[in-house]
């Protein structure tokens, strides 16, 4: 064990992490409808070690499926902060990117990554299960290469995120 350098240990850890990704899906909008086919026998995301989980403590991925308004943002932040490092966020569909069809709504958050660090977006309305799976594969690659460092960014730029959150949530 002691022969392993920290770098190598991290590599091994990342290798393990990418093979076992547990996901909590925060279903705010219509996007969740695409998840059942992703999980079940047609696409079967468990092939990649992905599995849906229920509490933030157990999960590695926060999947925000759909638009985020002010009310749900507070919950998303709570859930995100309760997750254990390393943790990743995926914005699902166009709404978390720019508000989607709700772009001019008074209560909808336009850009999720102003409030929590999003590692990956899946564009589309709705993204097909194939797109979802591709996204997960991409995330795995990112983890493997150490690029999925949203949680580190969040810690580094905590003041920035908190400021943005405060502005919206009051």
């Amino acid at each position: 064990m002691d022969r392993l350098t920290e770098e190598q240990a991290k590599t091994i850890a990342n290798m393990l992490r990418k093979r076992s990704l547990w996901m909590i899906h925060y279903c705010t909008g219509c996007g969740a409808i695409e998840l059942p086919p992703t999980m079940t026998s047609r696409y079967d995301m468990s092939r990649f070690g992905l599995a849906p989980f229920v509490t933030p403590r157990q999960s590695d991925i926060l999947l925000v499926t759909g638009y985020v308004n002010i009310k749900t943002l507070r919950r998303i932040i709570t859930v995100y902060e309760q997750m254990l490092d390393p943790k990743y966020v995926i914005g699902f569909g166009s709404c978390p990117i720019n508000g989607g069809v709700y772009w001019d709504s008074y209560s909808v958050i336009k850009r999720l990554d102003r409030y929590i660090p999003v590692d990956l977006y899946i564009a589309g309305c709705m993204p097909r299960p194939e797109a979802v799976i591709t996204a997960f594969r991409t995330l795995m690659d990112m983890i493997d290469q150490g690029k999925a460092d949203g949680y580190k960014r969040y810690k580094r730029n905590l003041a920035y995120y908190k400021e943005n959150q405060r502005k919206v949530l009051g």
Partner: protein
Amino acid sequence: MNASLELLLATPFIGGLLAFIGGKVHRWIRNLIAIIFSFATAFEIIGYYNVTIKGIVWGKLFGSDLILQTNPITWLFLFIVTSASFLIVLFSIDDMRKEEDELKLDAYYMYLLFVEGAMVGIVLAGDLITFFMFWEIMSWTSYFLIIHGGKRSMAAGYKYIIMSVIGAYAMFLAMAMLYAKAHSLVYTDVANVLLHSSPAFVIWTIVLLAIGFFVKAAVMPLHTWLPDAHSEAPSPVSPLLSGVLIKMGAYGLFVVLYGLISVKLAGSLMPSVFSTPLLLYIIQWLAALSIVLATFLAIMQEDAKRLLAYSSISQIGYVVLGIATGTSLGVAGGLFHALNHAIFKGLLFLVVGAVIYRTGTRNLSELGGLIKKMPFSFVALLLGIIALAGVPPLNGFVSKWMIYEALLQKKEVFLLIMAFVGSTGAFLYVYRLVHSIFLGQLPKKYENVKDVPILMQIPIWVLALLTIVLGIMPGLAMNVIVKGMAFFGFKPIAYNLFGFPQGTAMGALTTINISAGLAIAFVVAWILFILFPKSRKVSQYDNYAAGQVVTEDLKYNYSYGFYMSFSRVIKPILKWSIERVYNYWVEAAKIFGDYYMRRIYTGNLETYNAYIVIVITLAAAFVLLGGKIW
């Protein structure tokens, strides 16, 4: 150290009186006297360890001797009584300090020591008069202890004393019948007479005596006083009642069953079921029913002390069940469980008392999270509940194991099933206790709570230590029990310091291996655990609530109706209440009595004179019939 038995008996009584008088001078003098005398009593019994004294005449009444005696079984109960009393006096010093009325406190210590003395008297008694006398003294002195608790405790105490008196008089009737036959109530004489009596007489004697003991031991269906009395009594009194006082019923049962009559005699008098005399078998069933029903009721409770009170009914069921088996192993198990129950139930009541002392409530749904504030109490409570649930490696397991094995040997499967289920049920209610008091979220109002003063912790720790010591080394207690049982004519059972070798029971038990194994397994698991990254402590409000933010004003704790789903399952049983049956009859009797009393003492002179005329008429009729009505 070999003082006379009279001195041992007198010590607590003298102590009580002195404490009462000392209280007039200063409260610390009173406290000191109470401590010294209760300790002296506990210290005096050391001299009687494994000593058998056949009998000392300490008085004479109506031509029969009053006798004190001791043997190892006596010593076991003496040990329970005196050491528990000492610890409870220690605990009382701080706990009862909140009582402002010094006179009440003086009386409290007096009665505390009187109860101890009465129990010592019961245990030392060598004849039934002495036994009954101290039994009655115990009843009324403990009554005064119970009603210290305030308004609600008065109703509880009233119920207690009335039921005790009824039980005692049932016992008294049996004694009087015995006296008529034997013209002496010394145990040996009584035993001789019973040996040559008719079966009906022996059975009636046992039944009547057993009623007396069962009221005190709270065996169903005579238990209804216990939940009220034990929960409403002051915190230090509850362990005395639950831990020690109800054991007197078990002791009495033991003495009657094996001192006065023997199993062989009982077997020759009545048919046997599962090689147990019928009467004993009925007692076993009552005990087993106590175990199961009281366990179910305990699961439903919302009040910590009431929960423990019901648990006492269930645990005393094990003691009685063990004693009533009639085999060496079972009786030894029953007696050992009496000791164990005194230890862990005393411990649990003291801890709950400590919690009440700091928080002022015993309502389980109002407590929670106290582990952060009272860690020592938590550990003690944890040991107590593990022992109570009969989980190795603590003491409750060993005695329960003995009872199970004894029942297995006798193939009394239905009783065994009930005993097992009671034990599993115990796991439910003890978890309720630890969960609702110590685990979960800490309400804001208890943020400044801290552990209890050292004087209250000492008794807790002594008892906690005993659960471990007797759990790992049951041989320490078995020494006394086996020697004492030889005195009552039981076959010796093989045992060693750490359990029971193969052949005693249907299996073997080596407690040291279990505890050592557990310790090693724990260390291994712990080392594995700390190899991985250290954890960060989070606040109790940083909690999963499906995204909701938990705030202080939100009670985010599940503690009311903890086993609601289970109560739905046993609803048919819960509909039944023995207490309601009793109340119904008592009310009916009251209405009946009131009605006829008013018809007779009308306050009307004419009616009264009519009575005189009636008597004259009857007398005349009697004369006219020549004095031969019958």
